[in-house]
């Protein structure tokens, strides 16, 4: 399979080319014991009675961007969805929808990146599938995943458990992924060291759960940014959240790029950050636990839950002592000049 080769419809036909694609690409990168069997289903042995199960679909343009690619965010996103529920991610499935004409070299690069991310997270890609659609019917590649993780103990964590008196922690500087992708997608010509933050967070959540037995909720920050996650959590829990604008970590470069493009870092996407709610008394030890991990080095306490609020409300205290309410974003942020 030459590097210059492109995906053809026949690669999804179930015939010889399909088999070749499986052998030369998927088995090469994901050839763990379970996948190598190429059976209709993976058979797994769980050691816990409680499992977490998640599914997600990934589309992104461009497929490759500073700090990551669609494959990396597919694995990290799945791992992170499991991790923030307190589970230890174990197994992942990956289904690929490939657009006719996709360079096979790109597919290999994406699969290599998925393998790397899976290794970082200590998860196994155990089953998968591939389909090919005609040129113009997809955007290069779509990836759908599912993930299973094991939960030890009986603690339940989730947005509904957030309570007045909780502290709000964020695991690192926000907004880098969104800015990196936007700049790459629209060719905006910004030169900087800004990279996507895409990373598996399971080691971080394990450290957090070890530091406090009272973690009420964790959520990985994705497309709606920190603001989106907080608004959703406030709504599910029926609480008010107060966020200190000055306390939210944003790198100087992300801040500068956001000012230039008219973006709000609170609404920019992330792929390797989470927000965590714990009782105030545990906040410092959780913060310390986050700081002990490289992916949590920039963690900070950014706010608190002052009380109940019907329907939920998130108030941002601004740097100059003003206040404003945060709401969900309307669609993807676009660079603006006005």
């Amino acid at each position: 399979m030459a590097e210059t080769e492109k995906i053809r419809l026949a690669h999804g036909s179930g015939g010889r080319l399909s088999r070749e694609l499986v052998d030369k690409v998927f088995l090469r990168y994901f050839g763990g014991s379970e996948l190598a069997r190429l059976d209709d289903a993976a058979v797994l042995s769980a050691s816990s009675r409680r499992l977490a199960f998640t599914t997600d679909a990934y589309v992104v343009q461009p497929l490759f961007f500073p700090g990551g690619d669609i494959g990396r965010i597919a694995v990290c996103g799945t791992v992170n969805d499991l991790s923030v529920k307190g589970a230890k991610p174990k197994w992942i499935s990956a289904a690929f929808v490939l657009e006719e004409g996709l360079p096979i070299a790109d597919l290999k690069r994406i699969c290599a990146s998925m393998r790397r991310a899976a290794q970082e997270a200590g998860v196994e890609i155990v089953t998968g599938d591939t389909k090919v659609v005609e040129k113009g019917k997809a955007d290069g590649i779509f990836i759908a995943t599912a993930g299973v993780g094991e939960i030890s103990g009986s603690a339940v964590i989730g947005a509904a458990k957030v309570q007045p008196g909780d502290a709000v922690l964020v695991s690192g500087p926000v907004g880098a992924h969104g800015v990196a992708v936007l700049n790459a997608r629209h060719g905006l010509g910004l030169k900087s060291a800004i990279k996507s933050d895409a990373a598996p967070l399971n080691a971080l959540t394990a450290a957090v759960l070890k530091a406090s037995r009272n973690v009420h909720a964790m959520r990985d920050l994705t497309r709606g940014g920190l603001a989106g996650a907080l608004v959703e959590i406030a709504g599910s829990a029926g609480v008010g959240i107060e966020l200190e604008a000055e306390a939210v970590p944003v790198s100087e470069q992300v801040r500068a790029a956001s000012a230039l493009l008219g973006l709000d870092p609170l609404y920019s996407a992330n792929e390797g950050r989470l927000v965590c709610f714990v009782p105030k008394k545990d906040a410092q030890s959780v913060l310390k636990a986050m700081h002990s991990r490289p992916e949590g080095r920039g963690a900070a306490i950014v706010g608190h839950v002052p009380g109940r609020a019907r329907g939920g409300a998130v108030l941002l205290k601004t740097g100059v002592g003003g206040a404003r309410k945060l709401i969900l974003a309307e669609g993807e942020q676009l660079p603006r000049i006005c």
Partner: protein
Amino acid sequence: MNRANRRSAGAGFSLQDAPTAARIAAALDECVKTLKKPVSFMEVCGTHTVAIAMGGIRSLLPRGVKLLSGPGCPVCVTAPRDIDRLHHTASRKGVILATFGDMVRVRGSRGSLESCRENGADIRVVYSPLDAVELARENHGSKVVFAGVGFETTAPAIAASVLEAARLGLKNFYVYPLMKLVPPALETVLSGGGAAVDGLLLPGHVSAVIGLRPYAFAAGRHKVPCVVAGFEPLDILRAIHMLLRQLAEGRSVVENEYERAVKTEGNPMAMKAIDEVFRPADGLWRSLGVIPGSGLVFRKDFASFDAEKFFQPPDFPNAEPKGCLCGAVLTGRAAPADCRLFGKKCTPADPVGPCMVSSEGACAAWYRYGGN
């Protein structure tokens, strides 16, 4: 996060500081005590509207000082007819429509440029009109049309991109001229088309180009205190302080709070570029109608870059949405919350009027950041 560092914004000074803001707010309180009645100031510029909302500035103002939003969002004031004509042009075969991101979601009667893209049109978001020139250079087989929206701040950039395309001899670059001029719109607001305004917070970046003189009529003939303001929260508070002082002292002059960026004469070279490529003409504003001398059209020498002339899109009727108070909001006669559609039939996800469409529109800013 080093605070001094991250607020330095290049020039090495800090302009966001809560204790200072609180003290300035206290100074405003003192000023207000000398006034006999509540006052309303208009922030003309949409970037001010957003800065005021994002900084929670209203929560810092004394009672008796009200801020009204003005017609200063170039996207909001683009007429539905013109959106439709852009839409029509973008839908033609072989056309690449380049636009600032601001315009992508603005709807005309035929939908937005976003919906146009969903139907297969080639819409590119650019940061600079020069990027559109570059697109034309790279895509010889296509006709690249730049949606030329903006006020005097942006017009020089658009003019320069035309001059650059001319220099490069490009035959596939066009601009749809939809630029608007601020002083004529202010004249409309002040001469009865708008609310009673006790002071104008003037746009800092428009003024960086046009300078202070074009506002003389407002302070002179209309006797309205004017202050050109920067965009940091402290700039805005200080500008309000300056307006209150003018009122207290019975003066009305054009003052400059934003002296680090705005010179009295503006930027003559930028003005020259506008003048070389474009000439003033009547402009159609969304919700405000035609304002004499408030638009820019191509001069004869550059007519070959005129997308309107080349593509000749149909003259769609200018259908303004029913029940929408944007016209009143844009002239300070109504606050967003006064509109019956606000937050109900009209939200940022499903906007009816122009002020909800752009993120810097008054209604969108109220909706997202809360009005008070």
